[in-house]
C-alpha cells in the first residue's frame, strides 16, 4: 500500500462515478454517481494525509467537510426530487428538460 | 444416529401448528391456544403441522392447497371435522372428530413425523411460476418497451391513486390475503393495495364464514330462556373475540387468560367470575392494551354503525338494544351503555363494559331465576336478531380501512364482528347447558 496505489484506487472510483453520473437517467442513480466520485475524493484526501502530509490535521478536516457536503448534496438532491416529483410527476432527468416555470 | 438424537430433542418442543379454519372450526383454535403442548403459529412457514378445522367449501380448496404447500418439509396434516383433500396420501392424513382428542392427536402426529419419515405430506401443486415470461419480448422481460414486462404475471408497480397521506407515493403493492390468513375471520379473503404500510384499496373477495352462536340465543327466539344463561353466553362470546385482539397486540398470556375466563363462563361461579374479570380488565389497562396498542381510528359513520348494529352501534353512540325492551331485563333494571367515539378503542371499551354488565346481570338474574319475556327479538353479541338474522357486513371494510396503517387496520378488523349469523347454533360441549341457571 503506497500513496500511488491508494490514488489509483481513488482514480478508479472517480472514473466509475463519472460514468454513472453521466449515463444514468434517474435522479437517484445520478446522485449515486456523485457519491462515488466523492468517495474517491475522500480516499485520496486520507491517503495524502497519511503518507504525504505528516499527519497534518487539515487532511482529516477536509474529509469531514466532504462527508458533510455529501450529506448536504443528498438532502438537497432528494428535496429537489420530491419538489419536482410533486410538481411534474417526473423522476428521470429528461422529463425536466425545461425547468423554467 | 445424530439425526435421531436431534429428532428426539426436537420432539420435546411444543408442537408448532398452523390452523387453517374452515366453517365452524373456531372451537378447535380455542382448544389449541389453551393447550401448553401446542404452539399456534401465524405463518405456515413456521409450522410443521397443518390443522384444517371445519369444513372447507370446494371453492377454497385450491387456496388450501397453496397453504398446504407453504409448510416447510417435513410436515403432516390433521383434519378436525373436515374432509381431507383427496390427493393426499393416507399416511399423511390424520382425522379427528372429538375436541378433547385434538391436542393429543397433534402431539402424537408431530412425534411420529419426527421419529420416522412416513406420514410426510407431499407437495400438491407444481413449483412453477404461474405466468411464464422469461425469454419472451424485447429484452426477455416478458413484454414490450422499457418497462412493459409482466414477470410472474405482475405488471410494473405504478401508483394508481393519489397518496392518502403526504403526497409522496411509494410504489404500490397489491396482494390477496385469505381465506386462511389466521389474523382475519375464517373464510375472509380480500385484495389489499398497500403503499408502504398504508392501505390504499381494500376489496373483499369472499365474505367470512357465518358465525355460529351458542344454542341459547336460538332458543331465546322460541321460548323464554334464563337470562343468566343468555348473559353468560354473551360474555363468553366477547371474551373469545378479545382473545384474538390480545393475540394481535402481542399479549399472549392475557389472551390465554381471556380464553380461560371464557371457558369458565358457562358454569363457573358468577360472583368469582365478575371479580376475576375486573382484575383482568385492570391488567389490560396497566399493560397498555388501550394506550399503546388500540388505535383511535376506524370510526364508523352513523349510517354504517346503524347497519352494523349491536355493540358497534352502541360504541358509536346509537342507543339501540333489544334488551331494553324486554320485561325480564327491565325488572333487572337493565341500563344501556354507550360510547361516543365509535372508533376501535371505543368499541373495545364498550365490549369490555358489556362483559362486566353481563356478569352483573347474570348474577342478579341467577339469584331471582329471571327469564326473558319476549321471543320475537333477541340481542345477540353480533347485533339485534329480529325477523332476520344479522347479515354479513364485511363490505364495510372497503370504506373503513383505506388510509389506515396495516397494524391499525388489523386492530380495527379485530374489534368488529362482520360475519353473518349462522342459521344453526354451535354444538356445545357437554358441560355447558342449564347448570348456570340453577
Amino acid at each position, binding site marked *: 500500500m503506497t500513496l500511488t496505489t491508494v490514488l489509483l484506487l481513488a482514480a478508479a472510483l*472517480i472514473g466509475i462515478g463519472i460514468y454513472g453520473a453521466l*449515463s444514468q437517467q434517474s435522479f437517484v442513480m445520478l446522485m449515486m454517481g456523485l457519491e462515488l466520485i466523492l468517495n474517491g475524493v475522500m480516499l485520496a484526501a486520507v491517503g495524502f494525509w497519511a503518507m504525504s502530509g505528516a499527519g497534518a490535521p487539515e487532511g482529516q478536516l477536509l474529509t469531514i467537510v466532504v462527508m458533510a457536503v455529501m450529506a448536504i448534496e443528498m438532502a438537497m438532491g432528494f428535496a429537489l426530487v420530491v419538489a419536482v416529483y410533486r410538481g411534474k410527476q417526473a423522476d428521470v432527468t429528461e422529463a425536466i428538460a425545461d425547468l423554467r416555470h | 444416529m445424530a439425526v435421531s438424537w436431534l429428532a428426539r430433542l426436537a420432539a420435546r418442543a411444543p408442537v408448532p401448528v398452523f390452523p387453517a379454519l374452515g366453517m365452524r372450526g373456531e372451537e378447535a383454535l380455542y382448544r389449541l391456544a389453551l393447550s401448553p403442548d401446542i404452539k399456534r403459529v401465524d405463518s405456515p412457514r413456521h409450522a410443521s403441522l397443518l390443522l384444517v378445522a371445519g369444513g372447507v367449501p370446494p371453492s377454497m380448496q385450491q387456496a388450501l392447497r397453496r397453504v398446504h404447500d407453504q409448510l416447510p418439509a417435513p410436515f403432516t396434516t390433521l383434519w378436525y371435522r373436515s374432509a381431507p383433500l383427496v390427493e393426499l396420501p393416507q399416511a399423511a392424513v390424520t382425522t379427528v372428530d372429538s375436541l378433547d382428542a385434538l391436542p393429543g392427536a397433534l402431539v402424537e402426529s408431530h412425534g411420529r413425523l419426527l421419529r420416522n419419515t412416513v406420514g410426510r405430506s407431499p407437495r400438491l401443486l407444481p413449483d412453477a411460476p404461474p405466468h411464464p415470461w422469461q425469454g419472451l419480448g424485447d429484452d426477455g422481460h416478458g413484454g414490450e418497451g422499457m418497462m412493459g414486462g409482466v414477470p410472474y404475471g405482475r405488471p410494473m408497480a405504478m401508483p394508481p391513486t393519489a397518496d392518502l397521506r403526504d403526497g409522496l407515493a411509494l410504489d404500490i403493492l397489491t396482494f390477496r390475503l385469505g381465506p386462511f390468513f389466521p389474523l382475519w375471520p375464517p373464510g375472509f379473503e380480500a385484495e389489499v393495495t398497500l403503499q408502504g404500510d398504508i392501505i390504499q384499496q381494500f376489496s373483499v373477495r369472499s365474505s367470512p364464514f357465518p358465525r355460529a352462536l351458542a344454542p341459547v340465543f336460538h332458543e331465546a327466539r322460541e321460548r323464554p330462556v334464563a337470562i343468566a344463561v343468555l348473559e353468560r353466553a354473551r360474555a363468553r362470546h366477547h371474551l373469545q373475540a378479545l382473545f384474538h385482539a390480545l393475540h394481535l397486540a402481542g399479549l399472549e398470556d392475557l389472551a390465554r387468560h381471556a380464553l380461560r375466563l371464557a371457558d369458565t363462563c358457562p358454569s363457573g361461579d358468577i360472583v368469582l367470575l365478575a371479580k376475576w374479570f375486573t382484575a383482568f380488565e385492570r391488567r389490560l389497562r396497566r399493560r397498555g392494551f388501550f394506550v399503546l396498542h388500540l388505535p383511535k381510528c376506524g370510526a364508523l359513520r352513523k349510517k354504517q354503525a346503524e347497519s352494523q348494529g349491536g355493540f358497534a352501534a352502541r360504541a358509536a353512540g346509537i342507543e339501540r338494544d333489544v334488551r331494553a325492551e324486554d320485561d325480564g331485563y327491565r325488572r333487572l333494571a337493565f341500563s344501556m351503555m354507550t360510547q361516543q367515539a365509535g372508533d376501535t378503542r371505543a368499541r373495545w371499551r364498550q365490549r369490555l363494559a358489556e362483559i362486566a354488565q353481563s356478569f352483573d346481570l347474570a348474577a342478579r338474574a341467577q339469584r331471582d331465576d329471571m327469564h326473558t319475556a319476549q321471543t320475537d327479538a333477541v340481542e345477540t353479541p353480533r347485533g339485534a336478531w329480529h325477523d332476520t338474522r344479522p347479515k354479513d357486513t364485511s363490505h364495510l371494510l372497503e370504506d373503513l380501512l383505506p388510509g389506515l396503517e396495516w397494524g391499525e387496520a388489523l386492530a380495527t378488523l379485530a374489534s368488529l364482528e362482520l360475519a353473518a349469523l349462522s342459521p344453526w347454533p354451535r354444538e356445545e360441549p357437554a358441560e355447558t347447558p342449564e347448570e348456570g341457571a340453577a
Partner: protein
Amino acid sequence: MNFPLAVDIAFILLALFAVYTGWRVFRTDSMVRASFFLLLSFIAVGAIMLLLSAMYLGVAMFFMMGVEMMVMALFMVMFMMNPAGLNPMMMVHQHRLAIGAGIASFVIVAAMALLARFPHRPLPADLQAVPSLGNELLGESMLIFESVGVVLLATMIGVVVLSSQRGRYGNAGEGSMPPGLEPGGEPAGMPAKDDEEGGGHHHCH
C-alpha cells in the same frame, strides 16, 4: 513507509472489492441492490481508511454511509418503478459519452498519481489521530466546523421547505392538483375519478 504484508494483502482485496462493487452499482436491475452495492464500496473504502490509521474517519464512514444508503434505498422504492428488480430494464442515456468520460477521467487522475511527485512524509509515530482531529475541529478550524454546522442547519430547513406539503398548488392534503404533462392537459399521475369522501375520513391523527 512500510506496512506489514497482511496490511498490503488486505488493501489489495479491499481495493478490488471497492472497485467491483462500485461498478456493480450501475450494472444491476434493482435500485435497492444498487444502493447497497454502493454501501459495500463505501465500507471497503472506510476499512482502507482504518488501515491508513484514520480511526475516526473510517468508522464515521461506516455509520454515515449505512444511514445514507438506507435512506437512498427507501427513496428508490418511493420514486422509481421497479424497486425490487423484478422487471429487467435498462435506464441509461448518452452511454458512449459516459463511458468515454469515465475512462478519460480515470486516465487523467491515474496519470497524476503516477507521474506527479509527492513528498514522502508519513505519520509521526506518536500521532494520536482522533485527538488531533478533535483539537483541529474545535480549535484552529472552529470557523470551518461551525460554518459546516450552519450550512447543515440551513439545508435541513431548506429541505423541509422544498419537500413540505404546502407547495405552489396549495396544500397537498386539500386536493390541489399537479399541472398536466402538456399545457391544459389532465393532471399528471392523478386518478380519473375523484374521491368523494375527502381527506378527513382517511386520517386518524
